[in-house]
């Protein structure tokens, strides 16, 4: 509680310093707009609804890409849990793909799928799938034998055992995977939209930042950046709430 108060105080102090310096030194708003001006900018963006549109577009794309990535990851994990070959396949693919930042696949995606949403989804799904599959697989492999057998003892087998025992048992790992997926996906979508911005395709927050730079609307750039920060914080807050309601409440943890 006190630390939260301190943080708010620090934030207020920094904003005041920024505001004061910009005003006193007469810094051009083309380079650094004062916080009050950014706030004004927010008002305008919200009034004409464009900010919500940009943010909504980015959110749609990142959630869509994550959804695809999660489905593929679940399939790979199922394969890896069911057979040795599947396991080796997953480990080999993750070893190859993990060091590769997904954004580096964007040129290939543009080549294969053209400029548009499909390329973005491809890149985001890629940024998500490997981290999640690896985590989910670890989660499935570390399910305590006693839980598996307790489930079998009740007559569960096959999909029933996966749904009622494996999935909840692996939840700490799945949540970790989801958090990684979100942070990878979020970074990737902004980066990809920045590239798309240059080619003039309608887009989200990354595109907005880039366009406002063209327009020499530095206030707009700041508004975009602040929105990205706020949305990232909101996501972290949501994950923390989810953890508190599930694994923390149940006394479970990964590892």
């Amino acid at each position, binding site marked *: 509680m006190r630390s939260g108060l301190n943080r708010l105080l620090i934030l207020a102090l920094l904003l005041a310093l920024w505001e004061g310096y910009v005003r006193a030194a007469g810094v051009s708003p083309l380079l650094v707009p004062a916080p009050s001006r950014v706030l004004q900018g927010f008002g305008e963006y919200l009034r004409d609804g464009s900010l919500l549109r940009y943010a909504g577009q980015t959110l749609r794309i990142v959630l869509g890409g994550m959804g695809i990535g999660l489905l593929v990851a679940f399939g790979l994990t199922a394969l890896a849990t069911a057979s040795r070959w599947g396991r080796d396949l997953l480990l080999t693919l993750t070893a190859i793909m993990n060091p590769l930042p997904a954004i580096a696949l964007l040129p290939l995606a543009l080549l294969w799928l053209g400029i548009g949403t499909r390329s973005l989804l491809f890149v985001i799904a890629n940024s998500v799938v490997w981290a999640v599959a690896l985590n989910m697989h670890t989660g499935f492999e570390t399910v305590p034998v*006693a839980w598996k057998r*307790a489930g079998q003892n009740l*007559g569960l087998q096959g999909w029933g055992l996966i749904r009622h025992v494996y999935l909840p048992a692996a*939840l700490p790992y799945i949540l970790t995977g989801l958090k990684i997926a979100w942070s990878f996906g979020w970074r990737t979508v902004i980066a990809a939209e920045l590239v798309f911005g240059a080619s003039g395709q309608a887009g989200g927050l990354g595109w907005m930042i880039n366009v406002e730079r063209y327009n020499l609307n530095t206030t707009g750039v700041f508004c975009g950046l602040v929105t990205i920060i706020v949305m990232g914080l909101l996501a972290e807050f949501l994950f923390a709430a989810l953890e508190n309601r*599930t694994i923390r409440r*149940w*006394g479970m943890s990964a590892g």
Partner: protein
Amino acid sequence: MRPVKLQIRDLTATYRTGQGTVTALEGINLDVYQGEKVVILGPSGCGKSTLLKIIAGFEPAAGGSVRLDGCPVARPGPDRAFVFQEFDQLFPWYTVAGNLAFALRVARGVTGAEARRQIGEVLALVGLSRWGDFYPHQLSGGMKMRVAIARALVLQPEVLLMDEPFAALDAQSRSALQAEVNRMQAETQQTLLFVTHSIEEALVIGDRIVVLTAGPGRVKQIFQPTTTGLTLLERSEGAELRRLIRQLLEQEKTAEEKAS
């Protein structure tokens, strides 16, 4: 004579190691009668846990048969409810009552008011009526074990299988739970097959005590004391049995040392 509940005939089990196939159990023959408490006692590595896992259907037998009420068993099932050695055998994402409700729903298809009634009864039986809404991680080891027993009992199994359930508990909780098992069994007349390596535990719980030999496990001798519980331990019969069984197990140890 009471009817035979569980019939084990010529049961053999093997497992593979780097050096080849090892026989864990050989020619086990045993009848467990309805409402009886049978304790399997043996040195570690004698395959007593393997025997229980084969009966439960968790592991396959290499030969022989296990019949429950005359029907051969193959797959795991709630008619042979199992209590494991681990504290963490309850599902942490369900409350105490939730764990029991899940077991009832999945294994027996019982839900709603009827499930609540049965859960209430069993929780009262294990003395945890006020703990239904707690999560397993909020309980002590001994309480977790009571819940695990409750989860098995609520299924009303044909036979209850317990695999060294109190081995990880402190001495005090252990003797308390041994007494509770006797009390609950007296109340429910539940058929029980109980595995342990402790002679005292075997004497306290077993109507009959089956001593296994080590590597490969065979039935060495079956004891049938005239009484059970702490009364047996206090009598000279208990002391005598303890001495006899200890001698048997010592023989096993030296035989094994000579062999290796």
